[in-house]
């Protein structure tokens, strides 16, 4: 694991927000590594799906200097509580021989709708360590199937062995308090009960960082993380 420069911290801003929540940004420190180009020549259908060069998603630094695809979630503080499994499914698409989204969260038992939008075949292969692994062929464009994970796990790696550049990560949690940083580096965990929590930020290349926070009734907390070299 890479040595992380741990940085902090929390601007604890009490706002007159409607409900309790934790939000913030993940900053990137240092110079962004040159994006690694992906060659899709092993499958002409994949190569034809992109007119622009495609890059590895293992580090994406946004234009505003923030880090994308960081999974931020409540690690401690919700023990003993149970949460309903959402009825709506998570969408997980294979499009242009890339996974969309690249990082996503799901609750234990929540249905994940896996789609193949490509006119080529994929095998969707879960490398879960705490749930049963699977490897399913999806040879037909438009094909959909549903899977779920039975145990919490940070993170379940998904990959395609037909197209070895394809990988994605699914954070599986027993509660709904998680978020993934967007193209502005923002995350937002909403409607969380008041209490003391440890939240963790996970990134596939830079590892994890944690912070302790207290959320009071009616309080919106701002937290920022900083990853980098």
């Amino acid at each position: 694991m890479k040595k992380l420069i741990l940085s902090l911290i929390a601007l604890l801003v009490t706002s007159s927000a409607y409900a309790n929540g934790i939000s913030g940004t993940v900053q990137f420190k240092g110079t962004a590594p040159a994006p690694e180009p992906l060659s899709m020549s092993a499958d002409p259908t994949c190569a034809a799906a992109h007119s622009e060069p495609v890059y590895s998603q293992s580090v994406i630094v946004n234009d505003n200097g923030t880090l994308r695809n960081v999974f931020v979630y409540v690690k401690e503080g919700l023990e003993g509580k149970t949460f309903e499994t959402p009825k709506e499914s998570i969408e997980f698409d294979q499009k242009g021989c890339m996974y969309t989204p690249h990082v996503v969260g799901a609750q234990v038992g929540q249905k994940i709708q896996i789609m193949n939008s490509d006119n080529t075949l994929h095998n969707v292969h879960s490398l879960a360590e705490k749930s049963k692994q699977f490897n399913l062929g999806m040879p037909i464009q438009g094909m959909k199937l549903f899977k779920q994970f039975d145990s919490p796990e940070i993170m379940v790696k998904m990959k395609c062995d037909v197209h070895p550049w394809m990988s994605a990560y699914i954070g599986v949690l027993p509660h709904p308090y998680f978020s993934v940083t967007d193209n502005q580096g923002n995350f937002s965990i909403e409607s969380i009960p008041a209490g003391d929590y440890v939240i963790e930020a996970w990134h596939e290349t830079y590892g994890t960082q944690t912070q302790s926070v207290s959320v009071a009734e009616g309080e919106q907390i701002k937290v920022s993380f900083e990853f980098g070299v």
Partner: protein
Amino acid sequence: MNIWLRRYTKILTGLTFGLVIAGGLVTSTGSGLAVPDWPLSYGQLMPPMVGGIRFEHSHRLIASLIGFMTLLLTFWIGWREKRRWMRWMSIGALGMVVFQGILGGMTVLFLLPAPLSIFHGCLAQTFFAWLVVLAYGQSKEWQSKEMIRTGVTALKQFLLIAFGFVYAQLVLGAAIRHTHNHLLLIPHLIGALIVLVLAIAILVHVLRHHSAESRLTKPAIFLFALVIAQLLLGMGSFVYTVVFPKSDLPASLSQVFFVTGHQSLGALILAACVFLTARVFRLDPHAGHEKIATGLLRPSGAP
């Protein structure tokens, strides 16, 4: 003697070496699960050959060919061959290839558990070495009456010990490949040095005692050269998988080259070692026994 049977066995043995390389490429390119079903591939006999499927499905096609050819060989030998041990060798080959095919299917269906993959890799090389002996049994040399007398030699012992260490190296190498447990590199490296010493011992012994016998010098030199090349490929594999690991994106060409080459050359070393052993035992069957007759190992109490 049947010249076509002899040729056929040789061709099958050569193609099997190709299959060892093809199987190695599946692992080196990370394509072992590119086709999730077995025995069909995406429910078809011939899926689109793209990405990892190119490696996995080619491996399945070549394997089917070898399986079919081995079946034919067993029938052919059963029909034409009088020697019982040859018949049993061919039945053994058929049993191995069928078991190997099922094992390959299991690695796919159970998502590559390391023990199955290691077993599949080791059985592949065992099958190849087995065919080498079978092909040698079919050769003119084996079936001639000729023998050479070399006197008491340590060569047989050297060869059998070398075989044991080469086989252990194969198991260790397969374990490193499929578990990525870098601790195993230490015994693998020690094993490599022992194999090197043994290859040198065999070469020196042959050159000193049988320098006029090219049937022994050539394979001994070949074995030694393979071991040297193998050390270089092993270093390359180490550099590209341990020193500069590249886990996420497709494996680099150099990594695929060194790792597959190292594994395939390992199969060739095993086969060369087995061949030379078989040849020494065939050409000089009495060497070693003379020890009992003439010297140290005389049963006690004998005059």
